[in-house]
Every structure is written in structure tokens, then in C-alpha cells.
């Protein structure tokens, strides 16, 4: 780790996380104590208290979590991760009550596909990914492997899912591409004995499994969009359906209810309450994104549904109406913006949408959606009356901040997409930078917007624009290796900074005599504004470029974040790291210190928004 060398660095306190990785199958789990929701986000597991709305975090994985499960009693959690080809992927076992890691199980290669606890917490069964193809039974108490076996026969595809029977510690079931096996544990000989289920002519990819309460039969959801019912004792196909109107994009998750009904989530985001034998839909709700997990709270009077669009919904069984509990971006987040002089709200932008969040409650207050477009940068007008955004279709769009209506748009603002934007504090002009390297100044009239000047100096995309407080000067950072300080009255270049890097971020010191820049060379460099001469350079990161930087209002500290997934708080004068924040699981794309120096908000390309406590409050 990079942080181990210096003792002075302290951990930055993580206040809250907005994010949910909806792509983990059955990743959203309602804990048996009925009070907590547990879900993975990148390489972190979040335990969310539903009543008190507080989050706790389990850190430990080194890469994205690929599967996640909780034991029936709720005492243990287990999570598996992915790694790079040729490396071993860990399974981490967590003690729920102590909220800490209690075991690291390493055998699988590259990816852990699925995990399941036995009903009495004796064993954990883990399924390796496609490159591993093995199934391993672990002793929960000793954290030792008991026995292993190839997951599927040679002429079948790889297994995708595993589940234990409800009453016996010795029987579990795996399903996958053309394979469906019931396994029995022979503990005396340390052997796993599989029995292939006979499905006749039927060729299916089993994506999810659910075992009936008395273990008499089990149900398999398939990618074809139907459900197979199989007798556990005879291992023969009992029935399958629906025959005609199959679930489109496959059955992604299914859950049995005490009432005998089946909850089926499909890949097109439809949640259906079905009843055997012909899987007639009693009730149906359309949600956003593919449904990846359904978890029952208690006996099923209430259940939570997670979707791949990173939404968590709550349902009450009798009403069967969705209620959005949490939402977040499911794509990489590109920018953050705070309204002037308040830390209570902030806006983030990502592919397809801009969202406005309430900082304390993490509530999504507004969502502005522009389908299939990516918003690269976002800025609030100083008067708070519009949200200005830069989009990759070359348009600058301004939205009203309450209703999210389109106020105006500047079409063809840049030919290769708008990549950076800044607004003047008098709300009269916008400075934008494009992918082709031009910096343009736009005058905002009452009902019209027109180009004032186009400045063609950069050879590549403009990444970051910062304005001086008197609106007469701005600095732009470009990925062609230059930073240019522009005169915004005569529209000419004042100074140019050249460095052997792709600049990612630039900041004015509040006194505006110096700027700090950083980029892919992982160096933070201080420059003189007057003559563009370098003052000093600091090594900003051991690995990975620096993508985001922000300086505090008084200029004493600044914050950086980048591909090393660490937030670093620096002392401006000493040029030394004072705090390090560990928590991101994706590359940090942008970070901002909130007005009034309360929080640091950082966003990453896995869609997570992390809110840190700023260690030097005013």
C-alpha cells in the first residue's frame, strides 16, 4: 500500500455512500434481524440500517465483489470477488455482529461466481467462475476447505448459481449453462457426489434457483424466460412453464413465498407474482433495469428488489406497489457541482442523466434524463436558477433546477462533444471546452445565446476550465499536455504551461497567484500565474493518474483523487499528504470540497458517490 510509508497520514472519515451495485446477482440482502439491508458496492459491503438510516461499511476486498450471501441465521456474511486473469480470487467471510472480517478463503481463480451457506451455518459452498470451474465446500468454523470438485461435467457449460437445500446440511444444488446438479456431501470420505438432473430434450441456462420450504422440489429460472420445477428426490423434471408468454430477457431471480406464490424478476425489469402450475401472473410491476435481486424481509410481508440500474425498491406484499428506497447512478459519474454557498445539495452527472442529491439524507431530489447521451460536466449558475451541462453530443443544455425542464440548449457548441464547462459569477457568460480543443465563450441573452469568441489553441480535448473570481481570466487544462491561461477580455492567450502529461485537472489557489495542475503523470505541480513558471512538483500518487482536484476556500489544503482509488488531502504549503480516504472501488473521476468546507464528495466510475468528512472545517 502507498499509505504505509508515512506515519503522519490519518484516515479520512467516510460519512456516507450513495451507491448500489445492482449487477451482483442476489446482491441485495435483507438481514434476518429485519432491520438492515446489506448490499455490495464495488469492493465494499454496505450495511444499511433501515430505521435509523445509518450506513456501516465492510472493507476488505481488493476488487469488485461478484457474489454475496448471508447465512440463514444472519450470523455470517460471505462475499466473493473478481481479480485479474491468473490471480486467485478471495472469498471473505464476515462476522455480522462484530462487523468484521473473520476469514479469508482463497482457492478459486479469477472469479467467485456464487456462494451459499448451509441451513445450520456449518458449511459454505463456493462456486468458481468460468476460468475456475470448481466447487468447494468450506467449514465455516475452521475456515478450512473440506472438499472440492469440478462444478459441471466436461460436456456441459459452466455453473452459474448454487443454493443449499432448506433443511439438510448435506444437499446443495448447482445450476448453469446446460447443467443442473444435485450434490450430496459425503463427509466421511471428503467427497461431493453429484447427480445430474434429467431434463430430457430441454436445453436451458439456469440463472437462479429456489428450493421449496420442505425440500420436496426446487425451481430454476432460466435465461430462456421460463421456470423449471424439479423433484429433489427423483431429480426429474416435474413441469416447466409458462409455455407461451415467457419472461422476456430471461428469469433473473425468483423467490418463493410462504403463500405458495412465486416472485419472478425478469431481465426487462418486470416483477411478477405468479402462481403454479401455469405461472399465471397475479400481479405485475415494471421497474427500471433488470431485476437482479429480490429479498424478503422477515416472512415476506415486505420485500426489497434491486435492479441493475442501481435502484432499490420496497414492496408491501398486500399492495404490491413499488416504493423507491435508494437510487444511484449505474454508470460512471463524470462531474459534481455544488450550488453557490450551500453544502446541502449537490448535482452529479453521468451517462443519460443528471441527478440532484440532498447531502444529508442521500435522497435523490431531481433527475434530468437525456437518453443515450453522456453528460461530461455540470455547473450551477451562481444565482441558482439554472443547471448548465455539457454533453457528448456537442450540446450545452441548461435545465431549470426544480422541474428539470430544458431551459435552452446551444446546439453544435463543439464539434466533438462538450467536455468542460464553467460559468461566470455574473451569470452572463459561459466558457466551454470541447473535445476538438476549442475554448468558446457564450453570451447568455434573455432568450438567446450567442457565441462571443472561439479560442483555438489546444490541440486536444479540454478537460478542465477554471475561472478567476473577477471573470477576466481563465485557465484551461487539456489532454494535449498544455494548460493555457486566457484573457477573457481580449480573448488571447496570456500564458501557456507545457508539460509531458495529459492534464486532467487544474485549480486556482484562492489568492489566484498560483495554480496547481495534475494529470496522468501523477505529479501535482504548482505554477506561477504571472509568468507560467513551475514552482514545485510533488509526487501525487504511486499508481494511476490523478483525475480530480479541488482546493479549499482558504487555500490551506487541497484534495486529489484518481485511478489509485484513494482520496488524499494535502497541505498546500508543505505539499504533504495529511489525510487519506480509502473506500472507492472504482477510479475516482472527480471530487469537490463542499462550500463551507463541510464535506468532500467524490465520485467514481462505478457509479458510487462517497461523502467524506472534511478534516479542517472552518
Amino acid at each position: 500500500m502507498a499509505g504505509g510509508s508515512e506515519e503522519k497520514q490519518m484516515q479520512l472519515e467516510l460519512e456516507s455512500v450513495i451507491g448500489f451495485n445492482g449487477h451482483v446477482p442476489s446482491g441485495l440482502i435483507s438481514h434476518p434481524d429485519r432491520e438492515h439491508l446489506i448490499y455490495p458496492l464495488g469492493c465494499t459491503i454496505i450495511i444499511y440500517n433501515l430505521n435509523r438510516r445509518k450506513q456501516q461499511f465492510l472493507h476488505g476486498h481488493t476488487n469488485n465483489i461478484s457474489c454475496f450471501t448471508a447465512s440463514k441465521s444472519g450470523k455470517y456474511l460471505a462475499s466473493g470477488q473478481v481479480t485479474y486473469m491468473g490471480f486467485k480470487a478471495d472469498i471473505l467471510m464476515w462476522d455480522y455482529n462484530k462487523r468484521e472480517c473473520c476469514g479469508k478463503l482463497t482457492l478459486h481463480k479469477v472469479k467467485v461466481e456464487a456462494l451459499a451457506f448451509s441451513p445450520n451455518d456449518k458449511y459454505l459452498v463456493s462456486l468458481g467462475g468460468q476460468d475456475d470451474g470448481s466447487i468447494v465446500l468450506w467449514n465455516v468454523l475452521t475456515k478450512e476447505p473440506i472438499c472440492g470438485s469440478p462444478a459441471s461435467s466436461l460436456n456441459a457449460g459452466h455453473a452459474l448459481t448454487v443454493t443449499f437445500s432448506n433443511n439438510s446440511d448435506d444437499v446443495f444444488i448447482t445450476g448453469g449453462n446446460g447443467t443442473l446438479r444435485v450434490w450430496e456431501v459425503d463427509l466421511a470420505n471428503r467427497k461431493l457426489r453429484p447427480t445430474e438432473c434429467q431434463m430430457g430434450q430441454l436445453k436451458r441456462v439456469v440463472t437462479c434457483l429456489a428450493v421449496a420450504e420442505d425440500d420436496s422440489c426446487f425451481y430454476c429460472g432460466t435465461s430462456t424466460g421460463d421456470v423449471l420445477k424439479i423433484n429433489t428426490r427423483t431429480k426429474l423434471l416435474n413441469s416447466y412453464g409458462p409455455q407461451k408468454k415467457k419472461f422476456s430477457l430471461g428469469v433473473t431471480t425468483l423467490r418463493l413465498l410462504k403463500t405458495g406464490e412465486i416472485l419472478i424478476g425478469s431481465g426487462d425489469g418486470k416483477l411478477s407474482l405468479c402462481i403454479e402450475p401455469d405461472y399465471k401472473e397475479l400481479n405485475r410491476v415494471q421497474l427500471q433495469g433488470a431485476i437482479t435481486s429480490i429479498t424478503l424481509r422477515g416472512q415476506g410481508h415486505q420485500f426489497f428488489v434491486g435492479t441493475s440500474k442501481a435502484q432499490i425498491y420496497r414492496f408491501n406484499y398486500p399492495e404490491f406497489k413499488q416504493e423507491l428506497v435508494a437510487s444511484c447512478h449505474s454508470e460512471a459519474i463524470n462531474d459534481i457541482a455544488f450550488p453557490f454557498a450551500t453544502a446541502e445539495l449537490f448535482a452529479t452527472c453521468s451517462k443519460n442523466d443528471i441527478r440532484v442529491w440532498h447531502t444529508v439524507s442521500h435522497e435523490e431530489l431531481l433527475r434530468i434524463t437525456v437518453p443515450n447521451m453522456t453528460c461530461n460536466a455540470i455547473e450551477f449558475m451562481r444565482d441558482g436558477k439554472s443547471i448548465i451541462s455539457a454533453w457528448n453530443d456537442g450540446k450545452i443544455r441548461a435545465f431549470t433546477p426544480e422541474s428539470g425542464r430544458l431551459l435552452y440548449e446551444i446546439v453544435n457548441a463543439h464539434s466533438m462533444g462538450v467536455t468542460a464547462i464553467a460559468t461566470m459569477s455574473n451569470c452572463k457568460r459561459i466558457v466551454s471546452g470541447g473535445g476538438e480543443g476549442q475554448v468558446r465563450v457564450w453570451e447568455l441573452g434573455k432568450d438567446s445565446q450567442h457565441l462571443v469568441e472561439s479560442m483555438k489553441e489546444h490541440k486536444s480535448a479540454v478537460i478542465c476550465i477554471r475561472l478567476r473570481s473577477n471573470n477576466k481570466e481563465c485557465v484551461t487544462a487539456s489532454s494535449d499536455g498544455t494548460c493555457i491561461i486566457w484573457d477573457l477580455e481580449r480573448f488571447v492567450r496570456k500564458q501557456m504551461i507545457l508539460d509531458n502529461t495529459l492534464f486532467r485537472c487544474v485549480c486556482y489557489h484562492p489568492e489566484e497567484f498560483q495554480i496547481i495542475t495534475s494529470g496522468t503523470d501523477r505529479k501535482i505541480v504548482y505554477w506561477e500565474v504571472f509568468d507560467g513558471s513551475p514552482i514545485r512538483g510533488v509526487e501525487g500518487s504511486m499508481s494511476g493518474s490523478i483525475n480530480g482536484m479541488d482546493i479549499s476556500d482558504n487555500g490551506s489544503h487541497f484534495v486529489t483523487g484518481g485511478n489509485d482509488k484513494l482520496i488524499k488531502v494535502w497541505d498546500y504549503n508543505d505539499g504533504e499528504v495529511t489525510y487519506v480516504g480509502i473506500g472507492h472501488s472504482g477510479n475516482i473521476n472527480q471530487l469537490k470540497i463542499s462550500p463551507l468546507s463541510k464535506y468532500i464528495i467524490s465520485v467514481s466510475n462505478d457509479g458510487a458517490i462517497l461523502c467524506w468528512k472534511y478534516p479542517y472545517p472552518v
Partner: protein
Amino acid sequence: MRNMAVPEESIYNLIPKEEVKIQKPPRYTSTFRHSVKLEEQKNKAAHKTMGPAKVEVPSPKEYLQKHTKEATLAQKSALLNSTGKPPRCLAEDQKRPPVPPRTEQPILGIQTNKSFIKTNVAEAVLAVPKKPKPVYVDTKKGDKHLLETSGLVPKYIKRKDFGSTPEYLVKRNEEVRRAQEEYDAYVKERLKMGAMKQLSEEERQNVLEGLKKNWDELHHDYQGLSVVIDTPPKKAHKERLEAEMRQLERDIDVIERQKIIYIANN
């Protein structure tokens, strides 16, 4: 199109507002609550809460018979009072003799043969002469009064409170005196209220000192005036100072000359 009638949106309106909980005043409870409750309980009909009293049901043998509900004349009941005793006129030993029958002739012409003269003489002869009661005579005409009750005989000389003023008299005198005092005090107070306040010597000195201090300040200002009084404001200032000083001098003179000062109350 921007509609000017609609107020412009602002991002700051999105900040969730803290709901202000209106503090309800405590619920009104009557101060008579307790007494009303007691009254209510007191005025409750006898068997409103507990039901009718449990009494033995009438025996089936005592069924309703013919004419039993008709009013019957009271017999003898008038003679007996509540005590159960017969009235005094009917008591055996106190019964007066029965009314004489109409046929009976009253006995007439009965005379006594006792000689009252003789018996009186005999009594007078045998009587012991009466001892005269001691008297005193207070006039020359010989008006007599009993000596015993006159107080001239030293009869109660050994009593403890002999010769002292009786207590009731002491009390009464004290009351009279206090009433008189109160009345006097009241009259004095009323008089005082009507009178004017006199300034004490100390107060007088204080007033004098204050006046002199004020005069000193004004004098200091006056001395500090510029030599050339050329503009109307300067002139006005000087005149004002002079007028004030003159007024103060007059006041000091008055207070110094008069030793006794009354303050009129109007």
C-alpha cells in the same frame, strides 16, 4: 418559452425544509374537575352502577290474593305512637277517673269543723322570735339597707384579686386607648399628605453642588470660545451659553439665600 407569470425556479428551493412542529398548548382541564367528579358520584342514583340491591325474592307461598291491595282502615294504630307505648291518658296508673254518670247526684253541704283562730293563736304562741338582719341606715330619715350586701362588711378581704382593677376594665381601657391612637395617627397622616415636602439640608447641598458643576462646565466652554465671533452659528452658540449661565446663576442665588425650601406638590 419563459413565462413571466410563473416565479423563476431556484435550486435553493430544492433544499428540504425542516418541518416546524407546532407546539400544542397543554389540554385545558377544568379546575372544578375534582369537585364535579365528586358531585357526579354523589348524585348518582342508588342502583345506577351496581344494579338493584340483592334482596330475597318473595316466597311463592305469599302469592297475591284477592283484595289485599285495597286500602284497609287503620285499627288502633292511632292510639299507639312510634314507641309502641300507649299514650299517657290511656296508661293504667295515670288514668283520670271516669266521667261521672248523668244520674249521679253530687254531694253537697259538707263543712269543716276546724277552728282556724285557735290554731293560729297556738302557732303564734309557739313560734320562735325572728332574729333581725343587720342593717345600716344612711339617711336621717332612717332609710335602711341590708348590711350584708352593702360591701361595708370586710367579707372578701382574703381573696386574691381583692383590691385590683378587674380584668375586663383593663381590657376595655386598653381598647379605648388604642382606638384613640389609631385615630390620631390617621388624622396626622391625612394632614401630612396635604402638606408640602420640605427639602432636607443634604438634598439642598446636592442640588447646589450639581448646579455649580453645570455652571462650571458651561463656563469652561465659554472660556474656550474663539476670540472672533464672526459667523451666526458661533454667535448663536455664545448667546445660548450666556443665557444658560445666567439662568444657572439665578437658581444658585435663590437656593443659597433660602435655608428652608418647600416643594409645591401640584
